């Protein structure tokens, strides 16, 4: 577990060990902490633009004592078989899940973000935070322990959720990620007991799936 303050300090430290400036997207619990939805997270999920950027980051965290770990039971089997699965690095209880370009095939648009966090050390580490609708969608893809709880937290905090954006983005990515619509529909069904989701969004998903 890592809290907001420790996370900021850790990124500042990493920026001191980087060999060049790098930019990446923070998703999952890290993004939720930056956006003040929660105070602690189990893992730090980052998506890099290129493998080179990820390698620079890995080199820096290795100097700090983080080492590569097997993906183990963090993700289910269908996700573990994918080429776009993350590299896992950990040190004690802190863990990094490092993706490149996409999250299990879900391509990220690096130009759309709501927050920019710049850690200035020897080099710069720039982290972008996507809009919360995208966080909900990504959480329904990763489907780890506590991901659903995180979605509920976002929904309870934000009054207005743009379900149309979520559904349209999922449909756009269905060729890269075949099970995305099924997973999203499952999550949305569970969320019906907490929030109102119009039937038309389910219909859009069903027609896209067929």
């Amino acid at each position, binding site marked *: 577990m890592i809290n907001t303050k420790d996370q900021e300090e850790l990124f*500042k430290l990493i920026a001191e060990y980087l060999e060049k400036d790098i930019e990446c997207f923070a998703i999952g619990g890290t993004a939720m902490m930056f956006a*003040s939805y929660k105070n602690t997270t189990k893992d730090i999920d980052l998506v890099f633009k290129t493998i080179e950027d990820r390698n620079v980051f890995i080199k820096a965290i290795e100097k700090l004592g983080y080492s590569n770990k097997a993906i183990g039971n963090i993700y289910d089997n269908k996700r573990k078989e994918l080429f776009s699965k993350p590299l896992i690095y950990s040190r004690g209880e802190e863990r990094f899940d490092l993706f490149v370009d996409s999250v299990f095939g879900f391509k990220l648009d690096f130009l759309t973000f*709501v927050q920019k966090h*710049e*850690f*200035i050390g020897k080099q710069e580490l720039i982290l972008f935070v996507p809009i919360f609708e995208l966080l909900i969608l990504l959480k329904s893809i990763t489907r780890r322990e506590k991901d659903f709880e995180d979605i509920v937290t976002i929904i309870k905090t*934000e009054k207005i959720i743009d379900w149309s954006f979520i559904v349209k983005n999922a449909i756009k990515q269905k060729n890269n990620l075949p099970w995305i619509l099924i997973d999203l529909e499952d999550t949305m069904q569970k969320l019906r007991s907490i929030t109102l989701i119009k039937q038309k969004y389910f219909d859009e998903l069903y027609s896209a799936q067929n």
Partner: protein
Amino acid sequence: MISTEGKYTVETFAQKNNLTRQSAINKLSKLKKAGLVSVSGGGKQKRIYTLHTKPQKEQNGFYKIVNKYSPDKLNPSFEHYVYGKYTVENAIIDGLLIKDIRTKQAISHLFRHIKDWTKLFRLAKQKGLIMQLHEQYNYARKITKCKTMPKRYKL
């Protein structure tokens, strides 16, 4: 149950939550400590309390610097937080990267406050923005009263 998001005065907050004036002040103070309330006004002006659903963090990046020094104020298109030393020089380079006319207009006023030309040109070189920086400087010289660039950086 405390009322959610919105703007309140002490009186409206007390009325809406069925509290006495003093209880409302105490409650607002606790919420402010938790980062859930921001306050404007004070002194002769009436205090207006803005309630948020999430804790708010004060921004300290590009828009903070631009809106401090430039008479052309910008509406932030993203929240920018910086951990480390972020100066006018960094803001000029970030402004050039944004590539928006209003932003470029606003950053022209930052040339007045440059302290470290070496840093400015080092950052511009890193991002491949030397030509754009000279163009921006020439434009800033026309519309603002700004410092002269040291001769060694002139083209």
